[in-house]
């Protein structure tokens, strides 16, 4: 992790956002200029100097959370769960701030020639919070806990390729991982925040991990406290303590930041950015790969006809969607997901609204004056209903009548979920292969578009077994082309992550993973 901290506030704020749009300055520090802080603001605190302050308590307000909250390393459900899990436990690999795959508790992972057996080497001398040293036994016990058939956790499906019964400890820092069938991207599978390594004798009542903060107290649906772990394998955190408070309500969350009761909040609605800055707070904007697609079922009329799907992809005015639905906090999509994957196919031309071509495609398909129902729900996530309504307006330009049907969450995710002909869904950042596994295969649990294309399936099957990275990427790019040409997703944009923190806090940097710098508070410090 970079140890550099925010430079003195010299860059005007507007430039910060422009940099961000260019994408180049993703990791640039996000500190608004002191000169822009409203002079009459009562919350104004002298901008913190570049040097981190040791000690202090950081109080973080995290969205959501309920009586269902858990400290289980392998079953985080809500944002507060994620924030706790990330600070207590660490996986073998992880995605860095730019979503590049990096070793974490592992040092390396190498396949055998046939790709069926992998050799994992652990970082030596890593300690758990209770002083025990990380051993290969702990890794084996953890992987078995994750896929335990009696109590499968959230990560069980993605690790189903691992033959857990035949895991073998070679020595204290080496594990042999046999697979049920060859799989080239095992590292990516292991790089999930919900796959943290825990000791062999893990007890949820006294949770122990290797993370930078150790467990102190936990009240579900309310708050939790953690102390700095001084035996941490990297530089320990600056803070003495970390408090995480659940905020089911956005208003209360923003108010408590403004009233200086807490230091940082995640998921700030974009409409509040200016207000927070006027009040002397700082806003952290990160590009992400989260997407909110409109889904067309490729096996049901009228979308069975590929020309109708192509027409609908030409109907959407992407920049307008980003501007109105995301409040400008996002970037346009090109009907492809996994934008941070090294194999992302950026050679395909960006689609733009073309109502004339959309009309002629619909005419050719015999679908002039088409009327369709678009099913949406507030339960899909913020902005879903607005996106549906805006799409309906844009469709009028091509002579298509889109009736927006707003359902409650229970109906949307009820009997007919995954069989709506024309609906929406929500996905977080993923790389290409894991995303395909989750939603674009006949066997995927969430294949909303019923995508089952012979050419695509063959390409994916070959890619999965291909151990040569550049050959694999070519196959994945070809697979993306089939989706770009014939797929059922309308991917109009990717959402920015927007968080906020107080003027006396330093150390937050943009991050493509979870909110608030992936909830990594090790580099954060509080002054005053």
């Amino acid at each position: 992790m970079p140890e550099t901290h925010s430079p003195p506030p010299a860059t005007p704020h507007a430039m910060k956002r422009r940099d961000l749009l260019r994408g180049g300055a993703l990791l640039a520090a996000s500190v608004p200029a002191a000169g822009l802080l409203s002079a009459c603001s009562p919350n104004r605190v002298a901008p913190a100097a570049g040097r981190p302050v040791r000690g202090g308590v950081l109080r973080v307000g995290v969205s959501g959370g309920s009586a269902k909250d858990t400290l289980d390393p392998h079953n985080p459900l809500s944002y507060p769960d994620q924030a706790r899990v990330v600070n207590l436990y660490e996986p073998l690999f992880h995605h860095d701030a730019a979503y590049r795959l990096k070793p974490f508790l592992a040092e390396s992972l190498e396949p055998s020639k046939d790709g069926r057996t992998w050799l994992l080497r652990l970082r030596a001398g890593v300690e758990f919070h209770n002083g025990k040293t990380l051993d290969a036994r702990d890794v084996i016990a953890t992987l078995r806990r994750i896929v335990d058939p009696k109590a499968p956790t959230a990560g069980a499906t993605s690790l189903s390729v691992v033959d857990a019964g035949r895991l073998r400890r070679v020595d204290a820092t080496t594990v042999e991982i046999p697979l049920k069938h060859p799989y080239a991207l095992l590292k990516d599978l292991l790089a999930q925040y919900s796959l943290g390594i825990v000791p062999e004798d893990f007890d949820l009542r006294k949770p122990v991990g290797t993370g930078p903060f150790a467990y102190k107290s936990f009240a579900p649906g309310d708050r939790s406290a953690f102390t700095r772990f001084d035996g941490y394998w990297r530089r320990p955190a600056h803070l003495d303590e970390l408090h995480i408070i659940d905020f089911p309500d956005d208003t209360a969350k923003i108010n408590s930041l403004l009233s200086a009761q807490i230091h940082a909040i995640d998921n700030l609605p974009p409409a509040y950015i200016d207000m927070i800055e006027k009040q002397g707070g700082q806003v952290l904007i990160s590009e992400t790969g989260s997407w909110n697609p409109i889904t067309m079922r490729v096996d049901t009329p009228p979308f069975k006809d590929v020309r109708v799907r192509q027409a609908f992809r030409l109907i959407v005015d992407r920049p307008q969607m980003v501007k109105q639905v995301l409040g400008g906090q996002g970037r346009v999509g090109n009907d492809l997901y996994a934008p941070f994957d090294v194999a992302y196919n950026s050679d395909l031309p960006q689609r733009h609204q073309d109502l004339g071509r959309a009309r002629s495609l619909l005419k050719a398909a015999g679908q002039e004056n088409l009327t369709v129902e678009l099913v949406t729900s507030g339960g899909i996530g913020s902005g879903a209903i607005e996106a549906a309504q805006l799409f309906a307006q844009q469709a009028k330009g091509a002579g298509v009548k889109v009736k927006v049907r707003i359902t409650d969450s229970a109906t949307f995710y009820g009997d007919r979920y995954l069989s709506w002909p024309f609906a929406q869904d929500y996905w977080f950042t993923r790389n290409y292969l894991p995303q395909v596994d989750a939603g674009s295969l006949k066997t995927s649990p969430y294949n909303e578009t019923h995508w089952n294309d012979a050419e695509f399936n063959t390409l994916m099957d070959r890619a999965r077994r291909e151990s040569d990275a550049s050959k694999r990427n070519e196959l994945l790019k070809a697979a993306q082309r089939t989706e770009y040409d014939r797929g059922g997703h309308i991917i109009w944009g990717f959402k920015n992550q927007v968080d906020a923190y107080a003027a006396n806090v330093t150390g937050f940097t943009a991050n493509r993973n979870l909110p608030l710098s992936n909830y990594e508070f090790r580099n954060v410090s509080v002054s005053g």
Partner: protein
Amino acid sequence: MSRSAAEAAAVPATIMSRRREARPAVRAWTRWLLRRIGLALITLWLISLLVFAATHFLGDPARAILGRSATPERLAALRTELGLDRSAVRQYVSWLGGVLTGDFGTSLATKGPVSALIGGKIVNSTVLVAVSAVIIAPVSAVIALVSARRRDSATDNVLQVALLTTAALPEFVIGILLVTLFSTVVLTWLPSVAVSWTGSPWTDPVVMILPVATLALAVVPYVARILRASLIEVLESDYVDMARLKGVPEWSAVARHALGNAVVPAIQVMALQLAWLAGGVVVVESLFLYPGIGTALVDAVRNRDVPVIQALALLIAAVYVVVNLIADVLTILVTPKLRTGVR
């Protein structure tokens, strides 16, 4: 209440000598009380039917709970866990049996008993409502007294306009205004959420100020206005005039002759407002993140935690019924004509 009052007026009990009618009056009073308690129990039973029906027959709770992850196997497993595979009548009977023995079932969110989940929250909400009530009663009384004594004066007019304006604002608007004024935009004196770093919010009086003030501002206008109206009526009545003519000092005329009679409508309106607080506290609690039954209810609805929703809905309804019953009893006790006259 109005019916018993009318009945009481019809009975010429007051003409009888006190000694001779004391025993039948007590008996009549007991009978009246028992009848009221019986009616309250029937009301509660009907509410339990309604709550059960609302949570069970408006959609499949198992499907609502599972949402996106509803596979047929998980649905079947959850239906068995919730006992949804039994007939509706049997489900209701076993639920009601549990409620009567103090067992509200198992929370779907925590997998622990509902009572453990909501016990502490009930205490927190009770403290919030009690502190608010303790402030509301004297503040309303003072405002009403000042207004009634200086009727139609400038002070009275200003107070009336202020009360009407506040009464017209919903409690969440009042709450947001208070937060904007005192904790975020204008001043930053007070905490905007009732999160205490030491323990329960009420161990930390500073965090209680805004939630209590919001509840007080939402309720004081009603109580003060009703109390003012009844005080004015009493102060203009013949017996207060008589007292004044006899030379009783004004403060004594108010305190000894007027207040006692003006307090009856105040009890009724206070009771209604307290009952409202039990439910209205939901909005205020979630605005201030106060860990009481309000936030617990919102949380339970979000989690589709049916047993918790049932317990809290029943509890809030029970508070409503019980508070009204207590108010009626108090009214009878402070009104001699009613106290002696009930049949």
